[in-house]
């Protein structure tokens, strides 16, 4: 089967119009030494052969484990209606439509998504989505640097190491001063923050719940941050917002987060969903697309891409960001997922997560040598101190059929015996009891 849409005749005609003999001639400006000699590809195979190969590779995935791993990405149930609606051919594209106003249905869907993100975060304006939680946090930080004209960022070390690494990587060639403040007893350390907070600070970045699962009320810290004219940024876990105080209620200027937990399946590397919501006065610093509602010349409701003058295709090198698309399909999944649940459904989902995690704490606390860290309240994830290195325990638990958690020693120094355990609504009491029994057996 030929995947190239042009016939030899098409190609001959195009080449003759531009006055070139062959396709190879188009590459003559590239020195031979720089051209690939071979792509080292295997022989072409038939569809059946490729399917067989990929099925074999896929079977290597350990998909049957009972999952207690979170660390930023969570195993939530996805109702079949999400796939049924999102896979409709009218929607099934990964991109924002490039002639957006022709696609009123898509724009309406994104508008609904934005409204949901605003409600969840308690903030005024959401964009049409970003690539993932990390890129969203990076964009939030860049907004703060532009808005304040300052160069210093204070990072709570309870922010996922993945995100912190992304911030450092993205900005490695910019003169930005980063200060990391430690987590003490699971929570942000006020004294340390106040020590470094000054009128050179552009933003302070927190995560709630933080990487250790601890929930905090940041209102007092946000107030202090504002006194110095800096912005407060929160990276949040959307499912937790069904019961926790929202970033808006705490006074945060910008909220971002990973939207995977809203109807997007776990996969290695995504596609995931970055969301971002801001206070209204920051709208012109916000990157990415924004869908707005308006009325047409007949007075009928319609949707448009708005504030595009900040974007790359108009402002070129002066654009607020080089983000010129969004994660439309994943954003749609989130919108469908939250719409199916509704407000009471989302609260209930949050409640289930919280209760099951509390139940798991009780069960695990009975094992001798296992210590549950209780210095801070948690949502659906918590830290456990084991009598042995967590990495070893995780290996032994895989043999028992459990992905029992994330070894914190991988991200934090001197935490080799600490395990981070997440419990979603999908985990049954039976599975939780069984986790406790197996853990007791392998210790």
């Amino acid at each position: 089967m030929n995947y190239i849409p042009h016939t030899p005749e098409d190609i001959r005609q195009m080449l003759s119009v531009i006055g070139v003999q062959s396709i190879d001639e188009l590459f003559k400006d590239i020195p031979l030494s720089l051209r690939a000699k071979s792509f080292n590809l295997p022989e072409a195979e038939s569809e059946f052969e490729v399917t067989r190969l990929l099925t074999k590779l896929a079977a290597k995935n350990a998909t049957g484990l009972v999952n207690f791993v979170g660390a930023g990405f969570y195993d939530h149930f996805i109702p079949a209606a999400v796939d049924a609606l999102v896979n409709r051919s009218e929607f099934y594209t990964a991109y924002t439509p490039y002639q957006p106003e022709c696609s009123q249905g898509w724009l309406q869907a994104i508008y609904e998504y934005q409204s949901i993100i605003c409600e969840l975060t308690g903030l005024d304006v959401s964009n049409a989505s970003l690539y993932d939680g990390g890129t969203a946090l990076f964009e939030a930080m860049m907004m703060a640097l532009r808005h304040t004209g300052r160069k210093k960022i204070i990072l709570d070390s309870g922010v996922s190491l993945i995100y912190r690494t992304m911030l450092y990587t993205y900005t490695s060639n910019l003169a930005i001063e980063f200060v990391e403040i430690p987590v003490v007893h699971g929570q942000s350390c006020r004294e340390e923050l106040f020590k470094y907070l000054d009128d050179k600070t552009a933003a302070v970045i927190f995560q709630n719940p933080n990487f250790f699962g601890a929930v905090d009320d940041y209102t007092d810290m946000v107030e202090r941050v504002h006194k110095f004219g800096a912005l407060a940024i929160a990276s949040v876990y959307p499912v937790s917002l069904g019961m926790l105080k929202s970033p808006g209620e705490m006074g945060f200027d910008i909220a971002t987060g990973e939207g995977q937990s809203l109807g997007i399946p776990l996969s290695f590397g995504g596609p995931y969903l970055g969301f971002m919501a801001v206070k209204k006065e920051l709208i012109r610093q916000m990157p990415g697309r924004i869908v707005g509602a308006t009325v047409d010349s007949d007075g009928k409701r319609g949707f448009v891409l708005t504030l595009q003058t900040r974007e790359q295709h108009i402002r070129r090198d002066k654009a607020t960001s080089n983000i010129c698309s969004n994660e439309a399909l994943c954003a749609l999944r989130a919108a469908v997922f939250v719409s199916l649940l509704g407000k009471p459904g989302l609260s209930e989902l949050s409640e289930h997560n919280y209760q099951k995690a509390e139940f798991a704490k009780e069960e695990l606390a009975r094992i001798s040598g296992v210590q549950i860290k209780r210095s801070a309240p948690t949502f659906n994830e918590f830290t456990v101190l084991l009598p042995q290195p967590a990495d070893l325990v995780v290996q032994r638990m895989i043999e028992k059929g459990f992905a029992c958690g994330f070894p914190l020693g991988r991200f934090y120094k001197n935490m080799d015996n600490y395990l981070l355990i997440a419990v979603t609504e999908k985990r049954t009491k039976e599975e939780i009891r069984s986790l406790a029994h197996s853990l007791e057996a392998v210790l």
Partner: protein
Amino acid sequence: MNIPKSLLYTKDHEWARIEGKIAYVGITDYAQHALGDITFVQLPKIGEELKQASFCATVESVKAASDVYAPLSGKVLSVNAQLLTNPELINQSAYEKGYLLSMEFSLDAEKTKLMDAVSYQVYVEGLAK
């Protein structure tokens, strides 16, 4: 096209009205017309030091967000806060109510780099061709 005789102009279509050591700054009638309906203006902070030809404000219309460059070097004395709620003043009155800021300019000699009304008229007519 309205090009008042008493003002000085830049190639980027800013104007400056000199009153002693103070310059009032805005964008020209030609610029506001080219941009179309102005929807948002971002102004510098009072006290900010500006350099001639460097960025000092952003004027956003339905078509584009454009940077405004300082016609002279100096310190920002005041900004036209009315523009924050009524940016359309620039369309209605580019040289009076729609001014952007006033500044205390520091180098008299920099004025020679600006055009007078006649030169600016010729310059703009050249652009039209």
